[in-house]
């Protein structure tokens, strides 16, 4: 069994003491002392309020925090909830915290949570990101489609600022939708729920010992569920707020998400090459909601880094892109900032050529993924500029147009993939 190798003896003993549960909520942490207390409280309230009759457990998988995160979780778990709500537990709500081996990585944490879920025979599980500021209702919105409607994976949709999650809107959502043919709005879900059946499926995969399994587990979860033909749904949770210390390292984010997406195409060629049109998935609540509050964004810096990237990475881009695409990019990079636009068609073509170059390993795969960062900045600049004064509907219409471009150009990726182009 997989858990034999990754669960420590102490943790295993605590799990055995719990017995079996109906619902398991996993929280992976690493130095999250500033936010973890309210998060655990919200989870507890959510479980007691919406699932009072179910046997439930909260599992914290910690990556070796030095700021007392685990102590705060234990304190939050035993604190009296009377002052936050008038809820009474019908069953004992167990809370266990453990340190997983292998250093801080969301994949290692998820594997620990999955192993615990399998051992406790949980029929529904939810994973909550420590960076999320959640409401108790999120638990109900995530877990209810699993417990009531027998869905296997429930991904979230949020109310977000129109300029938040640009990588998702400009690359992950359109490309994942075009290739895997499912319209999952958040293919890299920080918070999600899944069935016990899917947990066992995830755990049996051999991805966990690889870098993708360590760092890109969130993306892998979505793709694996689609390819495995599991029942998918998405559920609107509410406003997505980002805590102050949340990392915004673009290259790391691209590695975790886009790198995993590129990597997944190798083994799943049969699955993604067969479909030509995308289909919507069951959605509880709106599939997106955008807010347009004023936000101070350094758009010019995005443009400058794009121009500099195209110029400085000339030799790298020559190895990845076709001559016409590179020439068009270079021409685009000469346009002054106010008039600069990165067209959807060029962006989709560029991303597909990166995908094919990754498949053929024309240079180091990690270098290919990194080289995409400055080009993405150009696309992000265009998105920021074009949607400066746009309403939510207009933004959505532009995202839809980009998705259609990705779907339209999918045959060109297939041609490049098998070397016909």
């Amino acid at each position: 069994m997989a858990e034999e190798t990754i669960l420590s003896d102490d943790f295993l003993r605590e799990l055995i003491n719990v017995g079996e549960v109906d619902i398991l909520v996993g929280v992976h942490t690493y130095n999250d002392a500033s936010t973890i207390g309210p998060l655990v409280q919200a989870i507890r309230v959510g479980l007691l309020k919406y699932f009072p009759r179910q046997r439930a457990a909260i599992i914290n998988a910690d990556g070796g925090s030095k700021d007392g995160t685990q102590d705060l979780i234990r304190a939050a778990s035993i604190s009296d909830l009377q002052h936050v709500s008038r809820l009474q537990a019908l069953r004992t709500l167990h809370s266990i915290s453990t340190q997983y081996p292998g250093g801080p990585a969301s994949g290692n944490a998820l594997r620990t949570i999955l192993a615990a879920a399998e051992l406790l025979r949980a029929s529904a599980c939810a994973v909550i990101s420590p960076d999320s500021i959640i409401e108790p209702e999120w638990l109900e919105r995530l877990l209810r489609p699993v417990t009531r409607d027998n869905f296997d994976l429930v991904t979230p949709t949020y109310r977000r600022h129109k300029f938040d999650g640009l990588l998702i809107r400009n690359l992950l959502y359109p490309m994942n939708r075009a290739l895997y043919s499912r319209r999952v709005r958040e293919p890299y879900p920080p918070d999600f729920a899944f069935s016990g059946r899917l947990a066992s499926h995830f755990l049996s995969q051999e991805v966990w010992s690889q870098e993708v399994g360590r760092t890109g587990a969130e993306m892998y979860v979505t793709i694996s569920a689609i390819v495995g033909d599991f029942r998918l749904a998405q559920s609107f949770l509410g406003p997505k707020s980002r805590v102050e210390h949340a990392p915004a390292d673009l290259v790391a984010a691209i590695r975790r998400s886009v790198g995993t997406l590129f990597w997944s195409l190798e083994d799943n060629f049969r699955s993604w090459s067969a479909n030509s049109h995308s289909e919507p998935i069951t959605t509880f609540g709106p599939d997106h909601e955008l807010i347009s509050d004023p936000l101070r964004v350094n758009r010019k810096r995005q443009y400058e880094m794009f121009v500099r990237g195209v110029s400085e990475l000339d030799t790298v881009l020559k190895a990845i892109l076709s001559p016409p695409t590179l020439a068009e990019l270079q021409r685009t990079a000469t346009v002054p900032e106010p008039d600069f636009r990165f067209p959807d068609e060029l962006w989709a073509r560029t991303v597909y050529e990166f995908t094919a170059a990754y498949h053929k390993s024309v240079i180091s795969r990690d270098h290919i993924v990194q080289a995409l960062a400055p080009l993405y900045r150009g696309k992000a600049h265009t998105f920021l500029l074009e949607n400066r004064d746009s309403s939510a509907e207009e933004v959505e219409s532009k995202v839809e147009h980009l998705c259609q471009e990705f779907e339209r150009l999918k045959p060109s990726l297939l041609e490049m993939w098998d070397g016909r182009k």
Partner: protein
Amino acid sequence: MWERFLNEMTQATLEIVHSIARFLPRLMVMLAIVVIGWVIAYILKYTLRSILRLAHFDRLSEDAGATQFLKKAALPSSTELLSRFVFWVAWIGFILIGVSVLGIVGVEEHIARFFGFLPRLFAAMFVFFFGLLAASFFSRAALLAAVNADLPSPRLISSTIRTIIIVFSVSVGFEELGLGERTIVVAFSIVFGALMLGLALAFGIGGQDLARRYLERRFMHERREEKEDELSPL
């Protein structure tokens, strides 16, 4: 007198004939070794070329930057060059084995030296090629990291790293060959030391404003810039 002369002549002629008779089979053996050696060397060349093509060695070589170097020198592709090199080394080896069969005094020592030198030659080539590969990989990694971190002069950083690794691998390669060991070590030390000193001076004295700005940005205003650019990609 005349009879004695004739005896000597006859004996000398007989000795020459005997020598030739002794030498001829050796010569035949040598020629056979050379011909068989050519066939084996050719088979080696053909096999190696096929293996290298299957392993996409030319792409690896292009990645290492060796292909551009060969093109500039109007030389054939890396696969072809390496196959030909192995062919010649193998055939020369067989020729020398053949020559040693002739039993010429003093030749054995040179032949032994040649065969003793071969492993070092291959080791030097190995070091040099993988040095080129490492130089290409790390210089590209540095270029990408510098561009993505918005550091000044990414190409300078990248080519500096490339130069250091190439100089290092060349010096190790020459040391392996036993050519100008001291000169190479001294040259490497001078180049590396000068480079480091130059960088330190350039950063500390010549670019003190840049250094100050960089350090200020790095340690004092980092938080302010993050606030300004508060976009979450995911």
